């Protein structure tokens, strides 16, 4: 009994520390990769390959003045950045990293992740509201509209996978992919979920809530020091979470030949994180109305058609 509790504690703290450290490290990875793809060096001064840049940035963030504007709604202003960290870290609780590695095995695991990602939007919206600043407010309004819109088909695009696996449990979904990854039968679902995931984590090209050329820094204009750092780390956490989810749902999770399961999971997730960075390096930002039209007029009908077709074919095959 006590040994199982010990294993559970190792799982929890191991996953927590690894994820947070990886999210921090990702700031360096992203800038190096962006540098590589845009033909410039990127951060390469601090430590070998600029690896200690993360430490330098952390020290900088911690020792900056933690400024709360006089006109801000104080309690909400302080609360907002913690929400994105908390919800994203909670989302990792149900991700099955490998057999035996993972925190809980929920029956409605997939819905749990969706719920956490839909709560994460409060961070941005409340941060924007509490800042009492017009650029932040515009960013927050954009974030609310964008996230609510993209959440709709983010959920619908996954229902094909749920139908194929016959379960909301993420471990069952991975186990159901032993004969073939769901990315092939659910290619459309995969593409739609990935696009919705980029929009949910407001990464470029869908980072309209913080578009710096028109909104200064959008929702986090008034934030400084570690509060800004939490928004920043929260964004990277959501990038890792979306990548881990895509791996679990469409790319067979930990399944793969020769290498140990955890290595397969990490490799697939890392590849997807690199795709996130590549998209940022390669694509320009659309206009805001284009973003919303693309969501409601293209992706929503497509995901509904995917749902209908998957259900029909499954019934026909029975």
């Amino acid at each position: 009994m006590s040994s199982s509790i010990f294993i559970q504690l190792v799982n929890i703290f191991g996953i927590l520390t690894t994820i947070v450290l990886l999210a921090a490290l990702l700031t360096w990875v992203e800038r190096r990769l962006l540098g590589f793809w845009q033909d410039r060096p990127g951060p390469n001064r601090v430590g070998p390959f600029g690896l200690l840049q993360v430490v330098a940035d952390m020290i900088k963030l911690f020792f900056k003045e933690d400024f709360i504007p006089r006109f801000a709604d104080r309690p909400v202003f302080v609360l907002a950045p913690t929400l994105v960290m908390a919800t994203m870290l909670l989302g990792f609780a149900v991700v099955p990293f490998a057999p035996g590695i993972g925190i809980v095995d929920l029956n409605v695991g997939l819905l749990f992740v969706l719920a956490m990602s839909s709560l994460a939007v409060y961070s941005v919206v409340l941060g924007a509201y509490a800042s009492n600043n017009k650029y932040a407010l515009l960013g927050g309004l954009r974030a609310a509209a964008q996230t609510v819109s993209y959440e709709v088909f983010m959920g619908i695009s996954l229902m094909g996978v749920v139908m194929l696996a016959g379960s909301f449990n993420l471990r069952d979904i991975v186990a159901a992919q032993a004969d073939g990854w769901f990315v092939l039968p659910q290619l459309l679902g995969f593409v739609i979920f990935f696009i919705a995931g980029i929009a949910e984590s407001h990464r470029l090209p869908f980072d309209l809530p913080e578009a710096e050329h028109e909104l200064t820094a959008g929702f986090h204009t008034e934030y400084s020091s570690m509060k800004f750092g939490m928004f920043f780390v929260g964004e990277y956490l959501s990038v890792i979470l979306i990548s881990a989810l895509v791996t679990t749902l469409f790319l067979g999770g930990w399944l793969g030949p020769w290498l140990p399961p955890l290595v397969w999971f990490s490799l697939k997730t890392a590849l997807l994180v690199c795709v996130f960075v590549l998209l940022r390096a390669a694509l320009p930002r659309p206009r805001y109305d284009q973003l919303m039209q693309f969501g409601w007029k293209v992706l929503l009908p497509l995901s509904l058609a995917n749902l209908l077709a998957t259900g029909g074919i499954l019934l026909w095959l029975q």
Partner: protein
Amino acid sequence: MSIFFYFSAAIALIATLFVITARNAVHALLYLIVSLLAIALIFVLYGAPFAAALEVIVYAGAIMVLILFVIMMMNQGDASVEQERQWLAPAAWIGPGLLSAILLLLFLLLIGTGAHSGDVHYVGPRQVGAALFGHYLLAVELASMVLLAGLVGAFHLARRDNPEAERPGHD
């Protein structure tokens, strides 16, 4: 089990109380979200994780965001807080307080007669789906028709009078 229930029930009650008494609309909304989350927890405790997940995704995650969106658009300042302070004068509490007291009395009587729910039984996504599209199909269809009417109404209200202005490049 029951300690978790009382804990989340207490959080839900206190948060709901703050929803009513908060003078700032956004703070009231935050308390409402906390209350919804606590209720979701109670759903989980009573074997309905699917309902809990939907509660968080639909109510806490989508509808509340839309309400917050509207409140932010209104951009209310200290004036509305002052107005709320006047509305929440002590005299305004008498009526609702009396009605709630009657409800509390009925509730205590019900508990006293032992009309509480029995064992916990698990209701998963499959059971919810079967009930929705089997037994309650008519109600679901009716609700979807009402929602469709709302959607068409919203579309009509938001439509521009001049269809020429809808062309891209005119805004």
